[in-house]
């Protein structure tokens, strides 16, 4: 029963990792752009939420109403103003530019907020739990986060496969030149994809901020978890990203149970094993 509890907690945190990964997966799928600043943007979202909760006296979940649109606008402007210029046949320019962006964001946040560790208070919900089975307790907040993660991923699937915007994303990803012949302004399509990615990042950032302490430097570690979840699940598949997040979360939970110092290592070892045995991931949709 104890192991069941551990696996369950791992599954729930897997939802958070899947949220980290979903935005990354989306951007790579639509424009083959690897966003090195992804983790730092999650931390940025956490700080935006901090500012909103302090300035307006609302709880973190309510702050999402403002944080999500703000981050979406930042994403649109970032893509249109900067990252669109890096897109081309070469994978390197976006990597370099987003790497630089990562450093700028980290240092900018350090300047504005100092290196003090922060945490967002969500109130009573943080400690609420209910007994699922005998001896197995689930925290309300982790369950809520997991449910929202599944909803976001389901929402992205629906968007991609059942809406005109999703069609535009897929077509532009397939063939940007011919997409223009359809009347699609690829600069706008890419910017919308980045706006969407940052909206998802906003949710991930707020969840992170409520769950653990955050400071300007923790971005790159979140990026790694996001990458691992995407690779385990397979590039281009949203549900795969969820599966990847869950596998990572469960691996870490089991590792932590064996020895607390093994938590992160267990996750990385499982990731490496899967990368070696099945590099395309479990549910790949994109062939590269």
């Amino acid at each position, binding site marked *: 029963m104890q192991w069941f509890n551990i696996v369950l907690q791992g599954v729930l945190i897997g939802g958070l990792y899947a949220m980290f990964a979903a935005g990354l997966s989306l951007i790579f799928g639509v424009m083959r752009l690897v966003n090195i600043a992804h983790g730092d943007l999650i931390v940025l979202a956490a700080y935006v939420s901090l500012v909103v909760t302090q300035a307006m006296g609302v709880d973190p979940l309510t702050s999402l109403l403002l944080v999500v649109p703000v981050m979406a606008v930042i994403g649109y402007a970032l893509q249109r103003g900067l990252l669109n210029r890096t897109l081309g046949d070469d994978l390197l320019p976006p990597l370099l530019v987003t790497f630089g962006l990562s450093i700028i964001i980290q240092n900018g946040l350090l300047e504005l907020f100092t290196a003090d560790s922060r945490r967002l208070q969500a109130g009573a919900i943080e400690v609420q739990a209910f007994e699922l089975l005998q001896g197995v307790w689930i925290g309300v907040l982790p369950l809520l986060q997991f449910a929202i993660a599944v909803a976001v991923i389901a929402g992205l699937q629906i968007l991609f496969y059942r809406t005109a915007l999703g*069609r*535009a994303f897929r077509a532009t*990803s*397939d*063939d940007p030149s011919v997409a*223009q*012949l*359809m*009347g699609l*302004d690829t600069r706008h399509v890419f910017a919308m994809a980045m706006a969407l990615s940052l909206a998802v990042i906003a949710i991930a950032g707020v969840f992170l901020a409520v769950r653990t302490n955050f400071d300007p430097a923790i971005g790159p570690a979140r990026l790694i978890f996001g990458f691992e979840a995407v690779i385990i699940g397979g590039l281009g598949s949203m549900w795969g990203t969820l599966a990847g997040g869950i596998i990572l979360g469960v691996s870490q939970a089991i590792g932590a149970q064996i020895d607390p110092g093994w938590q992160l290592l267990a996750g990385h070892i499982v990731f490496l094993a899967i990368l070696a045995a099945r590099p395309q991931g479990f549910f790949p949709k994109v062939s590269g």
Partner: protein
Amino acid sequence: MPDLLEVKAIDAFYGDFQALFGVSLSVEAGQIIAVIGANGAGKSTLLKTIAGLMRPRQGEILFEGMPVTGTPAFDVVSRGIALVPEGRRLFPSLTVEENLLIGGQSHRPGPWTIARIYELFPMLAERRHLPAPALSGGQQQMAAIGRALMANPQLLLCDEISLGLAPIVVRDIYAQLPQIVAEGLSLIIVEQDIAQALRAASRVYCLQEGRVALNGPARELTREMISAAYFGV
């Protein structure tokens, strides 16, 4: 009455390589024009420049009397020019129906709807939910034409629609041409199949190494005139 399309002495380059030298062409409303020429003569370049995928370095393009020179491709579509690109180039991640739907992305009003495209090409209706790559070459070509028609253009540019297709399939596709132009749609067809081009078009332009070597009504052109212009002898 001004011509629907007037291309005036355009030069087009790929980097330092000049592909078109002072090419001029005009299309009247409701007319079918054929552009023929050897590989590398500049036929596709000409269509791409008209469609806005390339910018001419010199010269002007007027559509319905208004300049479209240098207008980006996604705006050219909303003005009323649609291109069926060389090699079909359907979107592989999309189904047949989604490919047609995205053709209508610019939401231009007009007679072409998905239902009408399915009437024109019943084979597409049967395969509407299949991914585009699952179709045969001929079916893909029909889908590509349907996709361009969904933009309700005034001028349709067809780049080598016979490419890689069996003659009987090509005949089937060309058999639909009268239905396609029935409402007054104008057409520029780039063709390697000269006989087919002469049968379908009222006027023929022959390009040779980036220049217009011959241009005249299809009925008046003899085999000798075409050979001379085609090969530059």
